[in-house]
């Protein structure tokens, strides 16, 4: 039995990962600013920017899954850097010093995305100079720091889940549904851009599996998706139908949306910030350009396939909305 420290476990994805690790028979300690409330896990509280708290949390830990990050679409660049780059560095240093042998850095495909379409690419190197927005830039920087720390005794893997969604998700799903209900969810360019997503349960198994395969795959970065790209209109429509609201039909030219309007804050993050911006150019690009990935290396190296299909995911989402409305 391995004691695994999961940071950022108060978020939906972090919590799911912690639960999956428990299910796989690991001991789990969570670490975040407030208690995670996950049954069966030990709780440690504090910030990743606080070295003393981090050292304490790492006591007896053999492996780390690091999800905690400042996630927002705007804000003070220094704050992003402090949490996402500084916090990761603190955690890495303390973990290595404390004898941790495996470290999974949960990253984001946005670290290698410069705004153009991604059409069946595998994970490209993180590139802070070209990444769009403070979140992506600092996540890219942190991924580089993490992978640079990889060595045979301290085995680091970066894993980049892409557009995680599922029941209980207040971010992607919640915002889409809220907007659609308010009649404020247009499609960009008819919604034909092909986008791959990742159902929540698959994200949890993928990250847990990455930890278990770290001895073999360390030093690498992997994008995790369902491997089922769909036109963005179909994804939005699937989510809306599951929630029982009318899907969007109105199409807006993407060029217009890039400069004006506000839309869902979805994507590359797991927690809301207090300072959510209106529609950013970044988001408009996300919704009007395709981004889907070559999953062959991911599936082969990690010995992982997503168990829940997109259609099954929509069905589960519908069931959760139905249960909530009863």
């Amino acid at each position, binding site marked *: 039995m391995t004691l695994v420290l999961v940071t950022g476990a108060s978020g939906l994805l972090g919590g799911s990962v912690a639960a999956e690790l428990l299910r796989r028979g690991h001991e789990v300690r969570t670490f975040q600013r407030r208690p995670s409330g996950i049954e069966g896990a030990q709780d440690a509280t504090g910030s990743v920017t606080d070295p003393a708290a981090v050292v304490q949390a790492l006591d007896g830990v053999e492996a780390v899954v690091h999800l905690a990050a400042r996630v927002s679409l705007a804000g003070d660049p220094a704050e992003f850097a402090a949490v996402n780059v500084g916090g990761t560095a603190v955690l890495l240093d303390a973990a290595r010093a404390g004898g941790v042998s495996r470290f999974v850095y949960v990253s984001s495909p946005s670290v290698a995305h410069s705004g153009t379409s991604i*059409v069946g690419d595998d994970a490209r190197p993180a590139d802070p100079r070209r990444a769009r927005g403070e979140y992506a830039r600092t996540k890219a920087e942190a991924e580089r720091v993490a992978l640079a720390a990889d060595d045979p005794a301290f085995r680091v893997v970066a894993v980049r889940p892409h557009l995680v969604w599922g029941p209980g998700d207040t971010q992607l799903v919640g915002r889409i549904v809220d907007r659609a209900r308010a009649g404020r969810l247009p499609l960009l360019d008819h919604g034909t851009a*092909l986008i791959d997503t990742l159902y929540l349960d698959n994200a949890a198994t993928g990250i847990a599996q990455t930890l278990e395969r770290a001895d073999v795959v360390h030093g690498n970065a992997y994008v995790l998706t369902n491997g*089922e790209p769909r036109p963005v209109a*179909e994804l939005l429509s*699937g989510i809306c139908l599951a929630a029982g609201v009318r899907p969007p039909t109105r199409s807006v030219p993407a060029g217009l949306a890039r400069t004006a309007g506000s839309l869902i804050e979805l994507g590359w993050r797991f927690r809301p910030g207090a300072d959510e911006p209106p529609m950013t150019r970044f988001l408009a690009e996300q919704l009007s350009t395709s981004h889907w990935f070559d*999953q062959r290396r991911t599936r082969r190296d990690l010995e992982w396939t997503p168990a829940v299909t997109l259609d099954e995911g929509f069905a589960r989402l519908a069931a959760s909305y139905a249960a909530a409305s009863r």
Partner: protein
Amino acid sequence: MNSRLPRAAQAPAPASLPPAGLPGLDPALSRLVPAAARTWHVLDNGPVLEREGIAPIGTVLCVHGNPTWSFLWRSFVSGATDQALRGGDAWRVIAVDQLDMGFSERTAVERDLTLRIGDLADLTDALELTGKVVTFGHDWGGVISLGWAVDHPDLLAGIMLLNTAVHQPESSKIPAPLRLALGRGVLGKATVSTPAFLETTLALGHPALALDVKEGYRAPYRGASRRGGIGAFVADIPASASHPSDPERRRVAEALLSVDVPALMLWGPRDPIFSDRYLDDLVSRLPRADVHRFEGAGHLVAEDVDFAAAALTWLGDRFGRGAQDPAPAEPDDVSSVSLLAALDARRSSDATAVVEMPRRGDVDAAPRVVSWRALGQRVDRLAKGLLGAGVARGDRVSLLVPPGVDLTIALYACLRIGAVVVVADAGLGVKGLTRAVRGAWPAHVIGALPGLSAARALGWPGQKISVTSLPAATRIALGVTHSLPELMSVGAADSRPLPAGPAADDPAAILFTSGSTGPAKGVVYSHGQLAAVCRTLAETYDVGPDTGLVAGFAPFALLGPALGARSVTPDMDVTSPKTLTATAVADAAAEIDATVVFLSPAALANVVATSDALDPWQQNALRTVETFLSAGAPVGLPLLEAAAELMPNASAHTPYGMTEGLLLTDVSLDEIRALPEVGGVCVGRPAAGVRIRIAPLADDGSSSDSFGETEGVTGEIVVSAAHVFDHYDRLWLTGRAARRGAEQHARAAENGQTTNRWHRTGDVGHLDADGRLWVEGRLPHVIVTAGGVVTPVEPEQRVEGVTRISRAAAVAAGPIGTQQVVVVAETAPGTERPALADAALAAEVRAAAGVPVAAVLVVPRLPTDVRHNSKIDRTRLSRWADSVLAGGDLVAP
């Protein structure tokens, strides 16, 4: 020094090495070589091979033209060197800078053609070349390399050429750009004082040359004093018979006729100087040459395409370790066949041979009926007339004549004298037709008025012969020299017997592919192979002597007289097969008591659509039809069923074939009814004498080198038959790819068969347990997903089972290996503009498809090929889907 050149160009200068840093030029391969008191700069990998202890097979001697230098050959020198160092076939490559050119010595001596050919010999003497030498020339370097070749028969092993010329036909002027440069007062300025000639040449790249490459070409020609050689070269062009260099040029051209070594010509057709007519002349001097015209490439073919790889491949085939003598020639069984045998046997018969129905609306016109006796007579007369008009055996004759009596007579007259007919059909469109006719470069054109007008307007080559007598003014305007009536009366007056007819392996015809997958390709058939087409038709459909045949499908339509069958051409607009009506077919059938009807799929669709107009008498005429055939493209079951209702006593067939193999398998409507409607299109069992094999698909979607007949294995369909085409016209590389694996297969597996010519069809499919062939799509349309290879036809068939879908295409989006399947469909009712399918339709399509589908798009119309209007252009759709699904504009595909 030539007095027409500026003084600055008349100063001597020593040879030097090129500056470092020129793109693609390896300084280690440059050296200076003294020869006969002159110093040359050459690229030479000989020292590298020697240092590595590699013994070359032979030497390739590369000679550049004007105004280039050895830089032109850099990729070939490097490619050959890399290949040798990797352990492949080793060739020493020597690419010279001619004297006064490149970085070789500036001699201050006027160097004409004779001197330059001698210069090259001095150099090869100094290099003490022994063993096999293959020359490789471009532009005026081509003539010089050929001069060296004819002077060194003991060393010469092969000839390779890029765009060049060795002969200037008396009748035509030299190309306009050169005439301009040679003009009084222009020469010095254009070539020496200014770099105009150099820059004009460097602007000929397709695509445009990279800036650093242009700089490379300019490097040795900076300043007028360096460019004297360019001017002298232009001045030495033997533009007329009185030019001092013309006798030497003629000596080389004539000596070439007796050279018999392997030859390769790699040609860029978009060349304002060395156009296709020069290629045609070279081919006539080296008739066994392998020729590849790179469509879209031009004068600088060495920059436009990977000529180095092509040349190395050819050298390997001809001289390399992998080279084998062609598998023992096992001639096809063509001993007793002649395309004119059936006609000859009926020369005294007054029975009907050919009928041409009058055009619709022409109420007074009667059908043109020609008996066997008359047909034989007219064919002979025209054959003699054509000979008298200079149409020689082996000449190419383009037939721009609508199907009917005139075409039949012209065709068989050409076949009789061994002229090669070029049959480009109007279905290619004007652009495709022009490209096809220029590529085939016919010496003569026999045309009806529209064809001749087009030939004139579009500058098609060849002596023009009109089908009908024309008024003098029209004749002059169209450049027409003869007419068929005139030639026939000349022939009638000629009592001499015709010379012996052509042999079975002489070329008979060039047909064209539909061009649905790139430019139309010329497909060459020998007399024996065309006769074999007839034999297969006869055996498969029981068409033979005295069968009445409605000829509504072009290639087969022409073969009626060769089959001994009575044939009729229905009234239709040949430029548009879909204009053929049910009444036209019925009238034609009634005229000759037809029992067999051949139609194209597009024609068939219109015949069915217009069947309401049939009167009882016409309906009756169709009741006597025993066999009908829809050939050219696959036909759906509903259409075939509808056609069968019109011809209730006929057995309906839809054969599988292509321009390269006109009749490969056959399946009847009754069989189709009994088969499942998915799993591909079942095209039935091999036709008489045809063998079908499958080259399995690899994980990356490519087809294997080897092929077999294992049931259920999907792969590229490979065919063999006596009636499969001979070769592609001037597309050596394409033909080579289409025969990949054939030699090994013939040697390893099937010795003793009647033919070892195999053709890779580019179609994919599989054989079933009963030996039936199922077509699953085109090889380039195979979708390579992360989960495996998907062939498009089966998902399309499944999706077409969805009520609202009328026609569907399954295409790829994304990179090979991780491609997504995208369904693009026409719906009923139709959509006005392209869109994503609504959620319900998308769900139905996904449930039906049998493979994961990333997106479902609906469009008003799927793009199809021009000729048949039935083959969906999946390549274009795939590009469109890629763009739309990456956020591109949602325009029509």
